[in-house]
């Protein structure tokens, strides 16, 4: 139990400055967006109140919406089920084998700090046709797998996976860092005790590291989910959502609707759905992990 008993004025003095900036500039805009979602408004001229029409249109008539939802979840799924586990594995291996891990962990983190403008430009070049200097296709051609070459970013069925790969690559280091620090934080006495009981190496990882690292894993998963749902700048730089919406996700769809096709009300409605999905997913992930933690402790 917290020991500091203070007056409500003191609490206010501590918490209000932060809360005001935050509520005023993050929360109020979102309330405005909730309202805008009920309007037929191009963002400039007169608006008409249309109730839930935007949502009805979104769920029933918008040919782009559901595929975009599916792609958004595909991205989130890959991120949570492929990226985070790989990050955990790498983090475990680093802890186990590397004496001075900081350089390695920091280097892996590097793509995170680079601007998407750089990342996008780089990977577009990598994915280019061989004749235009595309690395993947050049390598495939040089080892005789010419039939495997593709126009990675423009074939509708492949393009979204090409982008997902970039996204997984970029944020891998972020999750490695989080997992790594989580493992570092497990008191070494526990491992020593386990060693006496005959558990070491990967066995120790299975029975000690994994359960102990669960809270951190949860953070990683929540962050990767939210990040996936909001990611859109990479897509804008690489394909702009094309060809023919084949790489459109919820966030890019929202951006296009709000600012390109000038259906601001409709775009706001999509934003609201996006936020709602984030909320629900976060609650679900929390519930799941609470259960796991109970089982292991």
């Amino acid at each position: 139990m917290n020991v500091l008993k203070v007056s409500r004025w003191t609490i206010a003095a501590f918490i209000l400055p932060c809360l005001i900036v935050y509520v005023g500039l993050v929360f109020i805009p979102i309330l405005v967006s909730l309202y805008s979602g009920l309007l037929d408004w191009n963002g400039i001229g007169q608006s008409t109140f249309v109730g839930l029409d935007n949502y009805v249109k979104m769920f029933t008539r918008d040919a782009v919406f559901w595929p975009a939802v599916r792609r958004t979840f595909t991205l989130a799924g890959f991120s949570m089920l492929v990226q985070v586990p790989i990050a955990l594995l790498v983090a475990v291996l680093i802890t186990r084998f590397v004496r001075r891990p900081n350089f390695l962990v920091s280097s892996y983190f590097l793509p995170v700090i680079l601007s998407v403008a750089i990342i996008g430009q780089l990977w577009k070049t990598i994915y280019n046709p061989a004749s235009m200097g595309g690395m993947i296709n050049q390598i495939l051609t040089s080892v005789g797998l010419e039939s495997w070459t593709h126009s990675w970013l423009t074939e509708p069925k492949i393009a979204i996976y090409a982008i997902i790969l970039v996204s997984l690559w970029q944020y891998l280091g972020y999750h490695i860092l989080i997992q790594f620090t989580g493992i570092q934080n497990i008191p070494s006495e526990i491992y020593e005790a386990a060693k006496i009981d005959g558990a070491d190496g990967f066995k120790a990882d299975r029975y000690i590291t994994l359960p102990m690292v669960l809270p951190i894993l949860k953070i990683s998963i929540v962050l990767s989910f939210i990040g996936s749902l909001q990611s859109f700048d990479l897509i804008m730089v690489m394909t702009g959502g094309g060809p023919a919406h084949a790489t459109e996700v919820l966030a890019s769809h929202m951006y296009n609707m709000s600012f390109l096709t000038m259906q601001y009300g409709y775009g706001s409605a999509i934003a609201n759905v996006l936020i709602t999905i984030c909320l629900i997913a976060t609650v679900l992930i929390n519930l799941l992990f609470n259960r796991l933690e109970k089982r292991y402790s």
Partner: protein
Amino acid sequence: MSQFASSAGSKPALKILGRRFSFKTAIAFVLFGILLLTQLYPLVWLLIYSLKTNEEILSGSFFALPAEWQWSNYQGAIEGGNYLRYLGNSLFVTATTMAGVILLASLAAFAIARFRWKYGQLVMLLFLLGMMIPMQGTLLPLMIIFKNLHILNTHLALILPYMAFQMPIAVFILSGFLRSIPHEIEESAIMDGAGPFRIFRSVILPVSIPPMMTVCILTFINVWNEYILAATFISSEKLKTLPFGVYSFVSQYSVNYGAIGAFLVLAALPVILVYFLLAEKITKGMVAGAVKG
């Protein structure tokens, strides 16, 4: 307090275990090497890119080095892109944002984690909600708010929303850290007759340095590359920030790719420097901060 310092250290027991299985070690190091290559590659690529001519970039082979190193790209980038002015603005905006986030978030985190009051968790929840909100969705409402505050086209129009959007993660990390500190630490201070402000200043702030570093880095990364708000709320040439310079090379009908590359290198340089200087601290801060999340 000493507990945190030690927890960041390595585990000698495990290290020794690892040594014995040299085959496994070899595999692990091959994996580390491949990862290192893929993750560091963009920087190398960018450097080479920035030294090529337009023609080489557009039609050259992927692995080719420039025929002639085009150092003039850098000259073009610095002169044509207003590099120094943008750099100054970026540094100012980023530094102010970081200071503001640290100050306000640690105050709030202190209150949430250490005060005895009912609504701590509720407020925490409110902050967590903010992590779900996509920044571009707030663009238009922010424009209207800033118009009414008369701060459009000032650095404040960037600093305030940057601070606001960094607040959730900052409060999250800092309060997580503070919750892990034993209560004795302020009990003894209360005995000495210290009020909450003095406890905050002379007890809490000093021990919170590691997670603050983490918050600093995260803020720095997010703010340094931000473009949409910067281009929308700032109109004066003398107030614009670095990402703006990057895009200013891309005009309607012509492009100088090499200079863009050079500008990207110059723009990324500060963030890379800061990151590697503070890399050790950020790991420690993460350890300290994220543990009880």
